[in-house]
């Protein structure tokens, strides 16, 4: 199955859950789709065997053919093209690569070329295949790199796929969780955790992806998140208590299941439970 891990609020423990879960399963593949700040490799320490460049398509204007009619600029909803009577200016960072400008150009003066915006890396960490993306610093659009990471997804017969989503609730998150069979929302029992969880719940409901909650750092904050989940009939799949040992292991880049093997079973059981719940 394809299982995504998302959260709304940042820093709730998505990567911790994703990496430890991957380590608790057999033949799992982990796709780190937080391409702005990928962290899973810092926990899993993979040996990278393949690096691929990620490109987007951008227009190139043949100024010999262009008559500065401005149709492309009128068409572009992203303000990426600006045309004056003698000049055409293009802002590549704003371009969404829709390809529309080339279609509307009456002089056939626009072609497309590739522009590099990031990389994907693939490697093995123990038996886990990890693929992660890295958006180049200064590039605004993460979604093409997320798409490129997801292209590496292994076929279902090879094993489960875990997607580590970026924080937030907008386009990069949607790109990451799109197509998942199930989504685990990792949250913490604090007012911020709850507020952002509510937004994430709305997004997943809209996308019609079934989901459940993992409460990380259980014991801190308050109990409102439990009341919310009860009211909305959202399953609480697992609680990870706030323990200094877990926090310390994370700080040095060590997945806690390696030091606390009792958690392997809990996390493995979690996936089993999810699969069973989906069959009903």
């Amino acid at each position, binding site marked *: 199955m394809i299982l995504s891990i998302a*959260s*709304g*609020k*940042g*820093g*709730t423990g998505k*990567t911790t859950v994703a990496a430890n879960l991957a380590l608790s399963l057999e033949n799992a593949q982990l796709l780190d789709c*937080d391409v*702005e*700040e990928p*962290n899973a490799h*810092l926990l899993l320490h993979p040996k990278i065997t393949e690096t691929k460049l990620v490109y987007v398509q951008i227009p190139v204007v043949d100024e010999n053919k262009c008559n500065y009619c401005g149709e492309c600029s009128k*068409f572009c*909803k*992203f303000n990426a093209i600006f045309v004056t009577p003698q000049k055409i200016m293009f802002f590549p960072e704003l371009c*969404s*690569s*829709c*390809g*529309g400008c080339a*279609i*509307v150009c009456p002089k056939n003066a626009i072609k497309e070329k590739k522009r590099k915006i990031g990389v994907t890396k693939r490697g093995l960490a123990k038996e886990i295949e990890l693929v992660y993306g890295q*958006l180049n*610093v*200064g*590039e*605004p*659009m*993460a979604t093409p790199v997320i798409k490129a990471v997801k292209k590496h997804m292994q076929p279902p017969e090879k094993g489960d796929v875990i997607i580590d989503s*970026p*924080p*937030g*609730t*907008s*386009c*990069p*998150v*949607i790109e990451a969780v*799109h197509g998942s069979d199930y989504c685990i929302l990792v949250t913490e029992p*604090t*007012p*911020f955790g709850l*507020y*952002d969880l509510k*937004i*994430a719940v*709305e*997004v997943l409901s*809209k*996308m019609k992806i079934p989901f459940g909650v993992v409460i990380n750092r259980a014991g*801190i*904050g*308050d109990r409102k998140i439990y009341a919310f989940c009860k009211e909305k009939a959202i399953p609480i799949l697992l609680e990870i208590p706030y323990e200094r040992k877990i*926090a*310390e292991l*994370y*700080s*040095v*880049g060590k997945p806690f299941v390696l030091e606390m093997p009792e958690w392997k079973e809990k996390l493995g059981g979690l996936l089993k439970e999810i699969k069973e719940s989906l069959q009903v």
Partner: protein
Amino acid sequence: MREITILSGKGGTGKTTITASFAVLANNPVIADCDVDAPDLHMLLHPKTLRTQEFTGPKLAEIDHEKCVECSLCQKICRFEAITDFQIDPILCEGCGTCAVICPETAIILKDRISGEAFISETKYGLMSHAFLFPGGANSGKLVTLVRQNAKEAAEENHCELILIDGSPGIGCPVIASVTGVNMGVIVTEPTVSGIHDMKRVLELLAHFDVRPFVCINKCDLNQQNTKKIERFCDKLNINIVGRVPFNPIVTKAMVSEKPIVEYSPESVVSQRIKEMWKNLLGRT
């Protein structure tokens, strides 16, 4: 007028806790919450809305099924895979309009869509500009730009000298929109391998956009060795560490009480350190 953005790269390092405290300590600031995806600052500052404004995000394509002959040209041309079975998926549609120009039957039109709201509000610490992106909404960068514009206008009208900006995690479009042209960027990091990794990427981002960087190490006693690593790294690049805030559960208690920590527990070590940091920052603007 000066603008200071609080950012982090990694989520959950304490941006909003620090920003809320700065809002208390600053003299008549305008406060801008630019984490429009998951805005949390309002829970600590309790803004009273003065003005609400609709945010028009990307357009949405709509197929007129009376006119559609199901030639499927639109489905083939759409690079966002937003059209299947002649239905537009509003979540995937970016509103580029390519489907509308390719349709031989002119059966597709683009409609405006409201994808969020922006607010100007009053708090006891100063005016606040904030927003809410509807869940799953696109174009958060554009909404961040609107929040900053609103903050600037509010600051000018009310003769405020300082805008405090709470950023979002990551380094992509909303973060870029929240740092371009500001005077200082304060990176809140934590002594974990991911905290350090993400801080480095945000430092690169600030350098790229020519913003003066400062670093705050939050939960600095969680891992002394990593704190030293951050210090050495910043020393080498001549980046000022303006604050070191120790871990303390009182920060979560303040959050549960929905109060900025410097107000909830002004005498706590955390609050003392945040106050020192604020003084440090003011000395460098």
